[in-house]
């Protein structure tokens, strides 16, 4: 691994960690403005993290090592994804470490450990959240994998570097039927995986409707900070995945420093646009009932399946 390769990894992980709370902050601010509230400043999630970091580390009685271990695994898996995935440059030295399938699996590692941690304290809320989270994950996972199939067919490889490079060389492949169908499926699955509206409402704390928040209810202090940071990173990484798979322009194809800088600026700009779009979407969307969520995910599954068959039959 060259020094410049190392720079790419450091920049990618730095953006993933540094901008994740800002993305959440941007979403909240834009939402608040559209709803006619003043809203918190964009850096508020960072301040929250700093506050949580300084707090006492309280864990519920009767929990095991899994409970303490889960936030670490959660953040760690997100860090690995940030290092593997081409965020600012397709020439990431770790591109060969994992492909899209591995990235989907790494996200699942975090989900599984957090669900186990939700069950660990033995409270009804934790179990409820874990059960619902796994229900959603079990149904979103197939959509993600099928979308991966459809996209991998485009570049004959499921390694992201190859896919993004292929898209840069043949930009018109993005507007094909298979690609657009895969985009729709991927967006729905990503909303479910990131616990956003209409699947889950991240700003609710009403027990009967929440999924993700119920699962992490017992976390406090620095552990809660890690869970929140990982949730932000997951949103940022899924956003980047969608952006770079379908609109990769601006991303560096080498590891030269100016190219990396341009890639970083392009990524931040694209994520900001995506964040505002998501906030606007959330203002006009209501959370759907829990037992309607599978129907939504079934739709995304069918769309992803159509994308794959379109890939097979339309070329």
């Amino acid at each position, binding site marked *: 691994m060259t020094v410049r390769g190392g720079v790419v990894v450091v920049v990618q992980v730095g953006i993933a960690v540094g901008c994740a709370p800002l993305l959440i902050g941007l979403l909240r601010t834009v939402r608040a403005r559209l709803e006619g509230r003043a809203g918190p400043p964009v850096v508020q999630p960072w301040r929250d993290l700093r506050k949580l*970091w300084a*707090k006492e*580390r*309280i*864990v*519920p009685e*009767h929990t095991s090592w*899994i409970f303490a271990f889960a936030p670490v*695994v959660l*953040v*760690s*898996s997100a860090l690995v994804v940030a290092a593997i995935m081409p965020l600012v440059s397709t020439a990431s030295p*770790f591109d*060969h*470490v*994992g492909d899209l*399938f591995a990235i989907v*699996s*790494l996200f*699942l*590692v975090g*989900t*599984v450990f957090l669900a*186990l941690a*939700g*069950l*660990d*304290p*033995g*409270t*009804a*809320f*934790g*179990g*409820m959240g*874990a*059960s*619902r989270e*796994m*229900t959603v*994950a*079990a*149904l979103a*996972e*197939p959509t993600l*994998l*099928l979308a991966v199939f459809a996209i*991998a*067919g485009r570049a004959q490889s*499921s*390694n992201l570097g*190859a896919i993004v490079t292929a898209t840069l060389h043949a930009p018109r492949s993005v507007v094909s039927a298979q690609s657009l169908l895969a985009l729709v499926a991927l967006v729905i699955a990503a909303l479910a995986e990131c616990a956003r509206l209409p699947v889950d409402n991240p700003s609710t704390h009403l027990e009967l409707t929440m999924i993700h928040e119920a699962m992490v*209810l017992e976390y406090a202090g620095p552990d809660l*900070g890690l869970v929140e940071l990982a949730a932000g990173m997951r949103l940022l990484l899924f956003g980047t995945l969608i952006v770079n798979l379908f609109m990769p322009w601006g991303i560096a194809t080498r590891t030269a420093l100016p190219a990396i800088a341009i890639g970083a600026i392009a990524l931040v700009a694209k994520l900001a646009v995506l964040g505002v779009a998501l906030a606007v979407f959330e203002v006009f969307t209501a959370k759907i009932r829990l*037992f309607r969520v*599978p129907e939504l995910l079934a739709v995304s599954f069918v769309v992803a399946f159509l994308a*794959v*068959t379109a890939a*097979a*039959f339309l070329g």
Partner: protein
Amino acid sequence: MALGVSAGAALVGSAAGFVLPRRSRVVVASLTTTLVGVAAAVAALAVLGTGDPVVVRWRDVIPLAGVTIDLDPFGAWFVLVAGVVVVAVSVYAIGYCDRALAGRSVQGMFPLFAVTLVLVPAAGSVSTFLLLWELMAMTSLVLVAAEHRDREAVRSAAVWYGVMTQAGFVLVLFALCLAAASAGSESFAAIRAGAHGFSATRASIVFVLAIVGFGTKAGVVPFHVWLPRAHPEAPSHVSALMSSAMVSLGVYGVVLVGVDLLGGGPRWWGLVVLVLGGVSALFGILHALVARDLKVLLAYSTTENVGLIFVGVGTAMLLTAVHESALAGVALAAALLFVLNHAVFKGLLFLAAGSILRATGTRDLDRLGGLVRRLPVTAALFMVGGVAIMALPPFNGFVSEWALFQVLVRAGSHASPVLGLAMPVAVAVVALTAGLSAAVFVKAIGTGALALPRSSAAEHAVESPAPMLVGMGFLGAGCLALGLFPAMLSSGLTRAVGAAGDRAHALRPGVVELHLAGIHSVVSPVGIAVGLLVGAVVVVGAARAFGAARVRRRAENWGCGRVLQTARMEYTATSFAEPLQRVFDDVLHPVHDVDVTHAAESRWYVDTIRVQTRVVDGVDQRVYQPVVGCVRAWGERARWVQNGSVHRYLGYGFVALLVVLVIAR
């Protein structure tokens, strides 16, 4: 040579199991069985390492046919699978076989069962194969019925297992005898050489008989009904062997007949295997999802995993039929890798289930919980197996699922319309199965090992003795090693695939990255593992560096205003699976019984409400129960024949004599 050691050790162990006094019996029988496994694994590794088959013929052992051993790399792969599991299970058995399981029949049969598992893939002729196959069925039947005196369910399970396995044997017998008769010789080499001369119809008959017969052993839907009955009732070390090694031999049989002996066939063969696999995968995982009994859950999960392996095998056969033999080789390699990984993690999970059963006396997930504190090692190893079977990096399940997925994606871009349609469906099935299996094993781990104990049995569980932990630890280490360094198997796997007919350079060598021939995607399991480790160190280090509190203070759970928390308030396995059960309502058809008792004073006041939900196996209920009912009805009807009257019996004898005389003339 090593196979001879294996067979000899088994005979010694079996004799020791029957003869020795109770105290030394278990240790001697188990340790000789360990030797059986070690010797078999050594023999298999030698064949896989060099590629030279081991051929032995003893003409005089059995009259007329003799015994032919012909261990090629393809068979050696399965010998290795069985050998590894036998080693772990036999060490585990030293600690596990107490009281009821230390009896003569169990200890005497266990080494024999182990040796048949490692010898079946080494058989080189039809008669030797069938002999070993039947011996395997018989010894395992005795072991399944080990606890028949204690529980009624064991007897019923043994009958089901016996009937299914014998029915399967009859079909395998017909298939192989038909092939041998057509080829004019009963050695596999001769059948292989003569297979191209078979008529298409005859080859197809052989194949269909074989797939039903071997499919019964492999536990694919609709021949799976014995698994959820026999696996839970058999002693756990036996169910571990059955579910990992014996089920793999069903896969071996299908590949042996379909690919190796007959050399592939028309497209519909591959499609049949593919459909059987896909249906099994979905059916198995959905029933595992709603299972409350830990070992029933694992049994259905075996059906699911075998289904995924069948998807790989079916893809390989389909690719052979469209003359993509290089890619077919990779598909077969993915399936064989899956067989090995499945044997390791499923063996581990069954052993851990046995450890939990021994410690708590229950397999009911709704009565377990909190075991991570009472059984720290068992629970940790159970989690390793669970994470491996969920196909999460850095464990071995991830590698085989990745390889299978890559093959399906690559085959889907083939020009043939059959593949273009079949592969997306297969990927959809594999993907849905992967998602659901995550939910299944979060349920198993989360409600079995974590949370508060739901019964006093779980509260007072005691950790298992050292041999059991060593046996499980061996397989746990295997899950990690095979997950980190799958490419170290590449040369052996390539030889195994080559020997089965599809000559292809399946896995490219290399230790750090995993390449499949003809597929551009790469993944480095070691890289992911190192990344996860570095990430964890960074997170913990950052917490220290930025002054986060290190001391944890225990405090009460947040309770939304309630004053008391008991284990009755927890989510159980049933409630955990309820949302997904509701989603798949139309497939699972759960039966709800709601029983309302009214207060004596007024029927407008409810006294108690009792709700019972069951999910019954649809195949079992709609296909097998009518057959069982029909047989029983005919049996009842035939009872008038035997009414105890001596006159009538004399009459039967007289009529029979007349009939014989008439025919004889």
